[in-house]
């Protein structure tokens, strides 16, 4: 009975050890850089900051159904942190990471965030992906006065002192996309379909108001399917019957694979039908397959194919760290912004204290000119100014950007869309 356990343990240790070894050269190289202000001055609230290091937490699902989506985000965060460390760290301190697994389970997210804040005293947490996980950790961050950088595009209707939202809120993504499709495709009739939870429902609520009140169009159908649903036959029949100018989709996660394959099987392809989705990034396309999506559109703020020097450097660095085959979706890029935004705020504040970092962030003038998506600025309301982009998918799983909006002001509580 002893055998299996004894052969299991060393392999675990070997792995950890090997990981430690890989990090070692970087640590040696960098330990010489940086003359730091003493820890007491930059940290008056007892965070995990020493003269040489500052500890942060990464909290994403490494296991469970969300792991496939969240992997990119945590990889991007680690990339940004390793780059920051390579250029001298923050206030002369190297960033140490404590990673926790949210396990696609909202109570686990709450437990782990409390652990990171109460026990590990991390100076910032980069993490959460779904709205449900954010809602689960939010009271913990507010209670323990932590700082969360949340990377996902989401439904808005929230603005917490303790969260910086690096993804786009609903209006930033939805309105620009609808305007574009109405103008470019002369769309008048829309069919709305989404997964059944808070984000798609809020997104569709805003979309419907915009279609009816601003664009003068008509919503000819609105359907929600449970998360994980793989049967879209009835919806597809209704779509055939109603013949909408545009299918406007917010189907999330694994359901997307069934949704697009069944559309194709039913003969609804981009040749005859315009489809705009707000929930498909390069990550999802890996699973769906580019051929099932060819010619359909996504509206995001970032596409991997974006042609600018920042993005080229980001894509190259990402592939070098995580492998040639990796793809970078919208959320991956937004997650990459988190550590950089935090660095900017900390350096301005000259302190890791949460209240001071938040106060700097709330001044509304922290800019990142090196963002892969181009340029972003942090708004007073904790969200980012960013541009919306429409990408047309091609067979190889990459999108061509066919439209870029102006810089859009984030507005998590849009008047007239409630």
């Amino acid at each position, binding site marked *: *009975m002893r055998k*299996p*356990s004894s052969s*299991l343990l060393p392999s*675990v240790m070997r792995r*950890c050890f090997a990981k430690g070894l890989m990090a070692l050269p970087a640590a040696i190289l960098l330990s010489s850089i940086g003359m730091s202000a003493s820890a007491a001055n930059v940290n008056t609230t007892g965070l995990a900051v020493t003269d040489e290091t500052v500890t942060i937490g990464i909290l994403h699902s*490494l*296991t469970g159904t969300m792991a496939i989506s969240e992997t990119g985000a945590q990889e991007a965060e680690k990339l940004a942190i390793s780059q920051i460390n390579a250029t001298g760290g923050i206030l002369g301190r190297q960033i140490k990471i404590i*990673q*926790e*697994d949210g*396990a696609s*389970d*909202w*109570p*686990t997210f*709450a*437990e*782990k965030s*409390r*652990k990171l804040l*109460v*026990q590990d005293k991390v100076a910032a947490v980069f993490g959460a992906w779904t*709205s*449900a996980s954010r*809602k*689960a950790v*939010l*009271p913990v961050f507010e*209670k323990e006065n932590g700082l969360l950088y949340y990377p996902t595009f989401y*439904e808005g*209707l929230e603005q917490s002192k303790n969260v910086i939202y690096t993804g786009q809120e609903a209006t930033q993504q939805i309105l620009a996309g609808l305007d574009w499709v109405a103008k470019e495709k002369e769309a008048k009739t829309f069919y709305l379909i989404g997964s*059944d*939870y*808070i984000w798609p*429902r*809020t997104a569709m*609520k805003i979309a419907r108001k915009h279609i009816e009140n601003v664009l003068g169009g008509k919503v000819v159908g609105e359907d929600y399917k*449970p*998360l994980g649903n793989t049967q879209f036959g009835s919806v597809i029949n209704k779509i055939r019957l109603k013949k909408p100018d545009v299918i406007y989709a917010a189907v999330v996660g694994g359901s997307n694979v069934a949704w697009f394959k069944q559309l194709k099987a039913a003969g609804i392809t981009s040749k005859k039908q315009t489809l705009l989705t707000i929930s498909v990034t390069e990550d999802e396309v890996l699973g769906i397959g580019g051929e099932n999506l060819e010619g359909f559109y996504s509206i995001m703020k970032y596409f991997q194919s974006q042609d600018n020097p920042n993005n080229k450097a980001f894509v190259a660095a990402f592939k070098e760290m995580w492998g040639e085959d990796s793809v970078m979706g919208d959320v991956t890029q937004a997650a990459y912004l988190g550590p950089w935004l935090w660095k900017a705020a900390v350096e301005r504040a000259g302190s890791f204290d949460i209240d001071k970092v938040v106060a700097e962030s709330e001044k509304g003038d922290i800019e990142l000119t090196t963002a892969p998506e181009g340029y972003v600025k942090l708004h007073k309301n904790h969200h980012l100014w960013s541009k919306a982009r429409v990408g047309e998918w091609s067979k190889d799983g990459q999108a061509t950007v066919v439209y870029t909006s102006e810089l859009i002001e984030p507005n998590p*509580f849009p008047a007239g869309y*409630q």
Partner: protein
Amino acid sequence: MSFVYEKIMGGKKGLTGFIILATLILIIFPLFLDAFRLNLVGKYLTYAFVAVSLVLLWGYGGILSLGQGIFFGLGGYAMAMFLKLEASSPENTTIQSTPGIPDFMDWNQLTELPWFWEPFTSFTFTILAVLIVPAAFAYIIGSAMFKRRVGGVYFAIITQVIAVILTVLIVGQQGVTGGINGITDLRTLHGWDITSDSAKNIFYFINCGLLLTVILASRFILTSKFGRILLAIRDKEDRVRFSGYDVANFKIFIFCFAAMISAIGGAMFTLQVGFMSPSFVGIVPSIEMVIFAAVGGRMSLIGAVYGTLLINYGKSAFSESFPEMWLFLIGGLFIAVVMLFPNGLAGLWNDYGHHITNKFVFISKAFSKLVPQSLLKKVEDAR
């Protein structure tokens, strides 16, 4: 006295086990764990209610319910609804289109509180709902199944299906249930901040007290005539029926009782963790809780608590140390326990526990010599 000693405490062995458990959770944990870890243990102990209920149902009644999450969830949701209503006072929700209703209702374009939410403004009603709603639901399921002599694997499957149905219902009706997010952001109970460390400590002890009470009540049921009939039903249902007993009623009773226990756990969970979500109602948590009971030993009420603590401690510890491969380690733990100790942790205790019990008796006898005789006499008189 002998009634209490034999029937409730379960004799010398039962008493020793009970005292060790009580010492561990009431004295040792609070002394040696920091606030964060203690709160975690408190959360684990809410699952222990379900594990204890499964010992009654599965270990003694032979009724394998793979849907105890249903009742845990019902209890938890009832408590969450009360707390959410308190958190959604008109002053707290001024930014909403309709102030005074829970935020998720506002997002889902509801403009008034649904009728079945109304009574949950009353704390008394909530407590009653925590106990009665799950029991009533269990009564309906139980009557429908046991009266028709549905049992064994069919019963297990049907409870699973009900768990799935309830999850789909909660997720689908997000306007009134909070959907997949669950009911979150619960902060106060009658104006008392339940997120503070002191509140968490108090809940921890209430939780422990309730758990120990539940164990004693369960022990009482099992040592009574009812318990023996239950065992008989498990081993030879037909023979009990031919002897003139209404088997179905016995099964319905124990199913309702188990549901009630699970619901208490759910309500305590909501109070300590601060939210409730459909992820506790479905198949996965329900089966997990069967595993807790199996690891602890499905014939042991106290073993179930240890099983729950061990597995959950393993989950937390492994996932903190090895975030990328902790699931394998947990799987390894399951396999190891089932292979090495088929009767769970309680089996270990039964095989080796008497050594400890003897020592304990020895110590307590030695201790009694140290206590002044006059004091002992007073205690005797008081009895």
